[in-house]
C-alpha cells in the first residue's frame, strides 16, 4: 500500500541507544479488534459525562465543589434519619419528618449551585476549549452529542437530588415505618426528582450552551433559579393571603421547584410544599404540560444552537 521509500528523514527512535532497544520498542501496531456501534459509543460518552459532573476523571480541583454539594445534600437527610430511628417512639413519629417531595424544595440552593456550576463544566467547556471539534470529527452524530450531554447532566442532577431521598427511605425502613406506604411515596418522589433534574438540566444546559464564558453562565443560572423561586414564593404568599389562589397556582409554573412540587401533589397526592399547589385536574395537567414544554423546549433550543457549530 505504501510504497514510500524509507527516507532517512525519519529520526532514530529516542530509546534506540542500547542495542537491546529494538526489543523494547514494539513499533506501531495496527488495531485489529472490534469497533463498537453508535449505541456503545453513546453509552461510553454518557458515563464519562456523568463522571465528569462529579469531577471524576478530571483534575482534583474539579471534584471539590460537586463533592461538597453532594455531602451537604446528604447531611440533613442523615440527621433526619438519625432522629427518626433514635426518637421515633419518643416523638410519636409515624412518617418522615420532612416529606420526600419537600426535601428538594428545602435544599434547592444546593441543587441550583450544582447545576449552575456543572452545566458549564460539561457544556460550555466543550465549546470554550473547542473540544467539540474532536467529537464532531468522530462518527457520533451531532444530535446524539447534544442529547447525551444533557442526559449526563440530568442523571448527575438526579443522583444529587435522589441520593438523600434514598437515604431517608432506607432510614424509614430501618425505623419500621409502613414499608408499602414508604415505597410508594419514595417512588413518587423519585419520579419527581427525575422531572426536576430534567427541568434544571435542560435550562442550565441551554444557558451554558449560549454563554461560552463560564463565570457568566454560572451566575446566569443561579440568578434565574433563585430569583424565579423568590418571586414565585412571594406571589404565592400574597395570593394565598388575599384569597386569590388561582393566581398563586399559575405563578407556581414559573419556578422549576414549585412546578415539580405541584406535579407531585397532582400525580401522587404528595404533601404540598407551597401555599398554593395546583387544585383540579385542569391545573394539574397544565403543570404537567409545562414540565413537558420546558424539557422538550430546552432540548429543541439546544439542538438549534448546535446545528451550526463546526469547531
Amino acid at each position, binding site marked *: *500500500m*505504501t510504497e*514510500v521509500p524509507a527516507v532517512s528523514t525519519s529520526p532514530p527512535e529516542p530509546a534506540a541507544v542500547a542495542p537491546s532497544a529494538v526489543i523494547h520498542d514494539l513499533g506501531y501496531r495496527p*488495531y485489529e479488534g472490534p469497533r463498537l456501534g453508535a449505541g*456503545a*459509543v453513546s453509552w461510553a460518552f454518557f458515563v464519562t459525562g456523568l463522571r465528569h459532573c462529579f469531577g471524576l476523571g478530571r*483534575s482534583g*480541583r474539579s471534584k471539590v465543589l460537586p463533592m461538597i454539594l453532594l455531602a451537604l445534600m446528604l447531611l440533613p437527610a442523615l440527621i433526619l434519619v438519625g432522629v427518626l430511628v433514635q426518637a421515633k417512639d419518643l416523638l410519636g413519629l409515624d412518617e418522615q419528618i420532612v416529606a420526600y417531595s419537600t426535601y428538594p424544595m428545602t435544599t434547592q440552593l444546593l441543587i441550583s449551585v450544582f447545576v449552575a456550576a456543572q452545566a458549564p463544566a460539561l457544556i460550555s467547556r466543550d465549546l470554550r476549549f473547542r473540544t467539540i471539534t474532536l467529537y464532531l470529527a*468522530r462518527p457520533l452524530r451531532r444530535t446524539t452529542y447534544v442529547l447525551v450531554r444533557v442526559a449526563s447532566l440530568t442523571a448527575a442532577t438526579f443522583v444529587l437530588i435522589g441520593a438523600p431521598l434514598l437515604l431517608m427511605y432506607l432510614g424509614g425502613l430501618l425505623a419500621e415505618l409502613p414499608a408499602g406506604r414508604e415505597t410508594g411515596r419514595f417512588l413518587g418522589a423519585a419520579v419527581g426528582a427525575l422531572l426536576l433534574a430534567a427541568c434544571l438540566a435542560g435550562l442550565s444546559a441551554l444557558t451554558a450552551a449560549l454563554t461560552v464564558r463560564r463565570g457568566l453562565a454560572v451566575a446566569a443560572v443561579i440568578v434565574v433559579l433563585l430569583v424565579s423561586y423568590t418571586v414565585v414564593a412571594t406571589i404565592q404568599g400574597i395570593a394565598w393571603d388575599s384569597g386569590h389562589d388561582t393566581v398563586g397556582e399559575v405563578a407556581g409554573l414559573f419556578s422549576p421547584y414549585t412546578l415539580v412540587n405541584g406535579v407531585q401533589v397532582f400525580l401522587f397526592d404528595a404533601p404540598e410544599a407551597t401555599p398554593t399547589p395546583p387544585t383540579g385536574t385542569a391545573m394539574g395537567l397544565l403543570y404537567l404540560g409545562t414540565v413537558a414544554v420546558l424539557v422538550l423546549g430546552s432540548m429543541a433550543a439546544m439542538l438549534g444552537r448546535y446545528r451550526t457549530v463546526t469547531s
Partner: protein
Amino acid sequence: MHVIETAGLTKRYPRVTALDALDLAVGDGITGLVGANGAGKSTLIKVLLGLVPATHGTARVLGHDVATDGAAVRSLVGYMPEHDCLPPDVSASDLVVHMGQMSGLPYAAARERAADVLRHVGLAEERYRPIGGYSTGMKQRAKLAQALVHDPRLVLLDEPTNGLDPAARDDMLALVRRIGTDFGIAVLVSSHLLGELERVSDHVVVLDGGRLLRSSATTDFLHATGSLLVEVQGPAGSDRRLGQALVDAGLPARPAEGHLVEVPVAGDDAARDAVRDRIRDTVVDLGLGLVRLQERHHRIEDVFRDGGAGRVDQSA
C-alpha cells in the same frame, strides 16, 4: 482507489469563496497541503471530514462520499485541528482513551491503544497530568495522539507545527514522516511553509485563494521551482567573482542575501546533479573554498512571486 478525490469542490461563504472548483486526487503516503493564510486549507480539511457542507461538487474519502456517508469517513479518519481543542482539566491519557472510545474502541482496547500512541508521539510520564499545564509542544503531541488512537487509515493534520519552536518543529515533522512510512497511515498535512512540507511529503498540493495551483510529486516540485544556494570562502568579493564565473558558464546565477549566490535550476535529478557538478568545478577553478551548496527552501510566497509554481525566473 485514491485516498481523497474531489470534483468541482466549491465552498462559498457569504463574503469569500474558500474553495473554488477544486479537482484533486490524493494517493497513499504523505501529501503536503500548502497555501498562504486564507488559501482554504482548513476549509478543505473540514469539508473532507463532513464537518462543513460543500456548496458544489463532490468529495470522496477512502471511497465514501463525505456528504452522504460522513460517519463512515469519520470512523476511518483521524483529525488534528489547527486550533486548540484540548480540555485543560483532564490528563492526556484520559482524553486519548476517551476519544478512542468515541471512535468505537472498547474501553480496554482504548486504554492499550492510548498508551501506545502516547508513547509514539513522545508523551511520557506527563501524560497523567492535566493538559492545562502542558507546553505548546506537548499539547500538539496530545492532539496528534487523539488523531491516531483509533488506528485511522488516513490522518488530516492541520498545521501540526503551528506555534512550535524550531526543534519541536523538526520533531513534529519527523513524527509526521513516521506516521506515513512506519505506521502505514496515509497523511494529509497542511502548512503555509512549503519548505517545511517538502522535507516530509511525497506529494505536494498547493492552494491559492481556494484554487488548485499545483499538485505534483515533491521531487517535481523542487525541480521546477527550486534553486541552489552557494556559499564560498575566499577574499572579499569572492561571491561576486563566482557569480560572474557562473553566468559566464551559462548558469543563471544571481546574488542572494548574506554574500550567497543563488542558482535557479529546473529539470530532473540528472540535470540538477549536472548543475551541482558545474558549480563545484567553477568554485575549484577560481581557487575558492566551497562552504556550502544546498537547496533553497522556498516559502510558499516565493512560489507565487515567481509567477506561479512551475515557472522559474530565469532572468538573473
